[in-house]
């Protein structure tokens, strides 16, 4: 058997599943978003779903909110993850525990984290009770709204909780493979600690941080259950809005849901572009 045939046969089952289910799902979604589905008699594609999505104020609010959630969560998680990785690089009392908790946290599903955040930060949650204990508030309604709130603070807190370990573990592995020689050289040439970090270590780990951040951004932009648990009703995060439109009793809303799914997919295609760009650079470096 020639290598070409062998490679083809080895890849065939996996590629069939990915092409049929993943790209098939995307393709069907794309067709339906254009109201084009010959099987059920829709033979003339049109843009009506996109027109109604792009003329709907709720869509823009929802898009902005989702972008805010994804962007803010990614930036905060990345910065804190770099800090946590710097901490974990050196030995200190409790390093083993942090290490273990990092990995434990990676295995806990987002949904559990979201419910935990609900019990911590809601107006009758643990922090509200603590505030009452210290005489800072009287009634639950005195506590600031941190869940179901317009700024999506609860959602962002949940993502920060979950993604610090995700990015942190990648950055830490990255730091360990780089070693400390470059930094020692910089220090011996008279660079301060901050300069060593800013001009030596940070540029070295940056591609790794960026490729992890891209994955986090795409995930936080497209996740459903977290904003469904912790988010406000209006505007809802884009995946929640898409799901609502799809399950609407009015079947005419389905193409709109598909159009939103395609918009989410397009945004993640941009993310894939950045991911490939930076992870390739990381491999070359």
């Amino acid at each position, binding site marked *: 058997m020639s290598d070409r045939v062998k490679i083809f046969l080895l890849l065939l089952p996996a590629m069939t599943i990915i092409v049929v289910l993943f790209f098939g799902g995307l393709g069907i979604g794309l067709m339906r978003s254009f109201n084009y589905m010959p099987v059920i008699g829709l033979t003339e594609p049109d843009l009506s779903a996109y027109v109604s999505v792009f003329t709907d104020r709720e869509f823009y609010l929802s898009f902005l909110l989702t972008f805010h959630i994804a962007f803010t969560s990614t930036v905060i998680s990345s910065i804190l993850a770099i800090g946590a990785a710097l*901490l974990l690089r050196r030995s200190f009392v409790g390093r083993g525990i942090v290490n273990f908790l990092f990995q434990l946290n990676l295995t806990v599903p987002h*949904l559990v984290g979201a*419910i935990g955040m609900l019990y911590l930060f809601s107006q009758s949650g643990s922090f509200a009770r603590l505030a009452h204990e210290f005489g800072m508030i009287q009634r639950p309604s005195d506590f600031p709204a941190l869940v179901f709130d317009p700024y999506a603070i609860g959602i962002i807190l949940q993502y920060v909780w979950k993604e610090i370990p995700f990015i942190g573990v990648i950055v830490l592995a990255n730091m360990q493979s780089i070693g400390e020689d470059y930094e020692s050289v910089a220090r011996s040439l008279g660079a301060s600690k901050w300069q060593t970090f800013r001009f030596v270590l940070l540029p070295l780990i940056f591609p790794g941080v960026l490729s992890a951040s891209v994955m*986090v951004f795409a995930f936080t932009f497209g996740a459903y259950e977290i904003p469904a648990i912790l988010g406000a009703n209006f505007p809802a995060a884009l995946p929640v809005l898409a799901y609502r439109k799809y399950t609407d009793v009015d079947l005419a809303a389905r193409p709109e849901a*598909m159009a939103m799914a395609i918009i989410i997919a397009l945004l993640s295609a941009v993310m*894939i572009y950045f991911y490939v760009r930076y992870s390739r650079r990381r491999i070359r470096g």
Partner: protein
Amino acid sequence: MQETRRMRSFRILTGAVLITWLVLPLIPLAIWSFAKGWFYPDLLPRNWSLRAWEYALSDTAGVIDSLWLTIWISLAATALSILVGVPAGRALGMYKFRGKEIVELMILAPTIVPGIAVVLGIHSVFISMGLNNSVTGVILVHLIPTLPYMVLVMAGIFANYDPAYEAQARSLGASPLKTFWYVTLPAIRPGIIVGGLFAFLVSWSQYILTLLIGGGRVETLPLLLFNFATAGRNDITGAIGMIYILPGIVILLLTAKHLSGRSGAVGGFGQI
């Protein structure tokens, strides 16, 4: 580098803050599962009870059925991912060929594109195939997030694999099946275990794919958890939540040494 005393205590302090933050959200869940009413502004429940656990573990509540169903779905998705992902990983890890970058990109894409973007389209096709509202349909759709991780882990394993051992076994008269069983399999077993555990956990944590394709009829643990959480049954939510995170903890304890510092492999948890 000389560490000053202040630097040291700063490290311990930030470490303590980090530890607290990492366990914090799990604490109220655990407490709720043993609480019998826990009203504002009590910092701890006044009455403790095992009621939520008794309910969750009873035959009538359906939590145990849901647990078995979730295990079955995740095991099936994992087994299929291994079966299909090992050959694909071999092709990507051991050969250079034209179009390899495109194949890699196509396998990478499902790890980044969110489930909601593809599942709506799949749902409308599964309806016509009679696969919606079925366990089979849910298992199939779980392959979208699980398979890429399996392939990527196995590609990494096969990149460091020497096929000369297979050739030697074959030249000594071993059949292809025997060669695979006694030579290839032992060499790639660590990859299968790590990749399989990732695949299991990725499937274990799926929500929106199961909700849409299962149509609410295939009630896995996360669906049950979500329903109790939004219905405000905090005590039962706490108990189900504890049951739900258990496999992850067990897997972590079993594989702690496989996981540490392997960025490529650990990346698999991103979608959980």
